[in-house]
């Protein structure tokens, strides 16, 4: 398969320039960078003036020898890669870390990071597993504690007006990403799945003040263009945390265009805006607990399933690929339930297990090609 050649915009270069320039500008403006690991950490609170949110990713971390001595070899390779990356870097590489008690691996990443490095600012949010009024109230209290911690540590005001400003910026970012995503419904979309992944990763690595204008400009540039390459089929990619565009590229090199996704470093992160409740923390809590949830949330499987089916139909996919990170209990188990249910619904489904760092490309391509052939593509 020949590589994708875009008519108008080389997204890879666009993203690289944006990140380099954006980080440079953030440094010059004295913005502190706060890393987070889960889509249930509200970006809004980390995006107040003086700070910006950075969704942790490090797909080029191949070896995790140091991290393996802390976290076990049976902990997911994402958390091990994150710990390795953080421990390798200078202590001022990141100004703070915010975790959620999202899963066993993340919880223990938090414990081990505190133990090994004791970062000056390191917090964990106890996220409820449900979305009732008590859960939302609990989440508001957690956010209040986080806000207070940020104010105290960084000496920055985190009043309602700052939060409302951050909400507006994050909502705008979501709107822009959603608009871009909508273009993928087209028969010949202007961007590939790999492109979208690069754009999303850049969006969640930089201040919204940098990203939003760039996204608006990009949408204008790609509108009216289409991909040069022809693909054999359209697929939806769903599953565990995935931030590596190279993984999506491997899929697309087989001829399967990834037109839609269902994972948390993708559309699950940017769907649904924060509402306009008078109390910003309440509005944030409502959005984050009501958004399309990840498998750790209770009683949400039917909604999650219906959403995947709806997206698959809206985006005209012919098959679904479920990728799950090895040792991820939540997606490991739910991935199989999804597989069975989607097949019963008549969707062709392929299940792939992966590690955080890209590997086994040959095998992966063979399996995807066989999958495409089985669909008659």
């Amino acid at each position: 398969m020949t590589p994708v050649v875009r008519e108008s915009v080389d997204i890879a270069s666009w993203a690289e320039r944006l990140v380099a320039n954006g980080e440079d500008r953030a440094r010059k403006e004295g913005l502190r960078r706060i890393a987070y690991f889960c889509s249930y950490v509200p970006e809004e609170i980390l995006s107040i003036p003086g700070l910006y949110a950075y969704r942790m990713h490090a797909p080029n971390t191949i070896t995790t020898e140091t991290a393996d001595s802390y976290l076990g070899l049976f902990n997911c390779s994402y958390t091990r890669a994150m710990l390795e990356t953080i421990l390798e870097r200078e202590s001022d590489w990141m100004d703070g870390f915010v975790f959620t008690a999202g899963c066993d691996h993340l919880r223990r990443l938090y414990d081990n990071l505190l133990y090994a490095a004791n970062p000056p600012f390191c917090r964990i949010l106890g996220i409820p597993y449900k979305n009732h009024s008590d859960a939302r109230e609990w989440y508001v209290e957690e956010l209040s504690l986080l806000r207070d911690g940020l104010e105290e540590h960084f000496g920055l005001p985190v009043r309602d007006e700052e939060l409302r400003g951050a909400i507006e910026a994050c909502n705008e970012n979501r709107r822009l990403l959603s608009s871009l995503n909508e273009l993928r419904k087209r028969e010949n979309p202007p961007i590939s799945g790999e492109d979208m992944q690069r754009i999303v990763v850049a969006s969640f690595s930089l201040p919204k003040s940098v990203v939003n204008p760039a996204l608006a400009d990009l949408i204008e540039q790609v509108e009216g263009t289409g991909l040069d390459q022809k693909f054999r089929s359209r697929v939806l990619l769903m599953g565990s945390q995935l931030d590596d565009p190279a993984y999506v590229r491997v899929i697309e090199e087989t001829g399967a265009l990834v037109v839609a996704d269902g994972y948390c470093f993708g559309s699950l992160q940017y769907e649904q805006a924060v509402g306009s409740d008078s109390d910003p923390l309440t509005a944030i809590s409502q959005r984050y607990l009501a958004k399309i949830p990840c498998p750790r949330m209770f009683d949400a499987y039917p909604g999650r399933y219906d959403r995947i089916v709806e997206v698959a139909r809206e985006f005209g996919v012919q098959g679904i690929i479920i990728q799950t990170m090895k040792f991820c209990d939540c997606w490991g188990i739910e991935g199989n339930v999804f597989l069975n249910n989607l097949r019963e619904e008549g969707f062709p489904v392929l299940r792939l297990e992966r590690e955080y760092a890209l590997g086994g490309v040959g095998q992966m391509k063979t399996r995807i090609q066989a999958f495409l052939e089985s669909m008659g593509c």
Partner: protein
Amino acid sequence: MALIDYVKRFPRAIYPYYYTRSFVQGLRAMAVIHYHAWKRGEKPFDPNMIKNRERDLFKLWMEGRPPDYQVAIGEALALSVDHYVDIFCRMARDPDRLIWYEDVIPPEIIQAMDLIPFMVEGIPGMAPMVAPEEAHHFIDVAENAGYPADICSMPKVTLGMVLEGLLPPPRALICSNSPCDSGMSSYLPIQQEVDVPVFRVDFPWDVYEPRAKEYCLKEIERMILFLEEIAGHPLDMDRLRDVCEMRNRMQKATLELWELMKNKPSPMGGMLHPLSHTAYQVCPGTAMGVRIIEEVLKVAKANHREGRGLVPEEKYRAIMWGAFPVTAPDLYEWLENEYGMVTVMVMLTYDHHPLIDTSSEASMMRDLVEIMAKPPMARHTRGPVENFLGDLFRLYEDYQADLVIMGAHQSCKNMRAVLRILRESCRHRDIPLLILDHDVFDARVVSPEGIKRQVSDFMDTVMGAD
């Protein structure tokens, strides 16, 4: 004089007595089940899921023990058999009242509502001990159905049995986010398989936070509403009070037992101590549960009165932390015989709570919810790592222990992720630590012999044992 008092006079008769008793109870269960199934025109449920091998446990844990200990083991096991027979008979008569509950959810409330509580992991939990090939079969069933090989083998055995339709069908299901993701997530396919209403209890990540009490209370109130709808009547608080007061009797006996075990030599140990604690999981707040704990306490008191330890010469006192290797059910006995090592406290047994204050409905609910939010293991695996270590180091001092054995179950992502912290913390405190690699339910990963070899190597090289 009870029959057992006569039997005690003839030690050789103890094992046959309990074997026969459980056999007769099994026949009773089969008769009741078949009768009611015939009446309803249905296929009878087969309670013989692990092929009666549970009686092998009587022999395993009684061998070489004094008569009083044998009787206590016999009572504990026989009462557990009685409990399951009772459950099966009630279920046969009234199948619509069977409620499945996850092992970390104390069932007092289900009991108080005259519903039939059935711990989902109970019988799967026995399989690796008595019928390992059955356990392996159920693990393979789950894996062949597409569930990952790396999830905890306990949910895999459970899921395998559910997928084969071996467990009695429930009317409803209660589960939670405790103690870990494997257990929690496995209830989605279980729910789909049995297709009944489910209530999931949301316990906060750090149940020790002061705010958590109120949150947990409201969750349990929601659970009660759910059960009331299933039961067709409200929770009878007087009945709940009876259950709580019986549980308090169990707890008093347990606390007394634990105090005795702080003595050197320890008057109790072996499998009897942790085994008796399963009463809290399957029949808390019942006369049966009280009797199990009190039988154990009787043995401990008698030993202590006579200045006698459980083993002839106590050389080492161990704390068993983490997941006990169920695949080596004779491990405690072997440690005692081989090294004079008594296990004085076990994580899965350490369910330390104050007594439930039954003076008012509010205090009763408050204290019961505390117990539900902090069962053994869950209270250690949830929250920050300090929750995992705090109890351990305090128990090490209180029980004058000589070493810690950390049952490092390979698929326990939660506990394996803190092994380095544990190791360095123990080193800092000069606590000898054995990290025992195993799989809790799958003997194919590490055999019982392999488990013992790890202990032997540690005892030789670190403890300098003969």
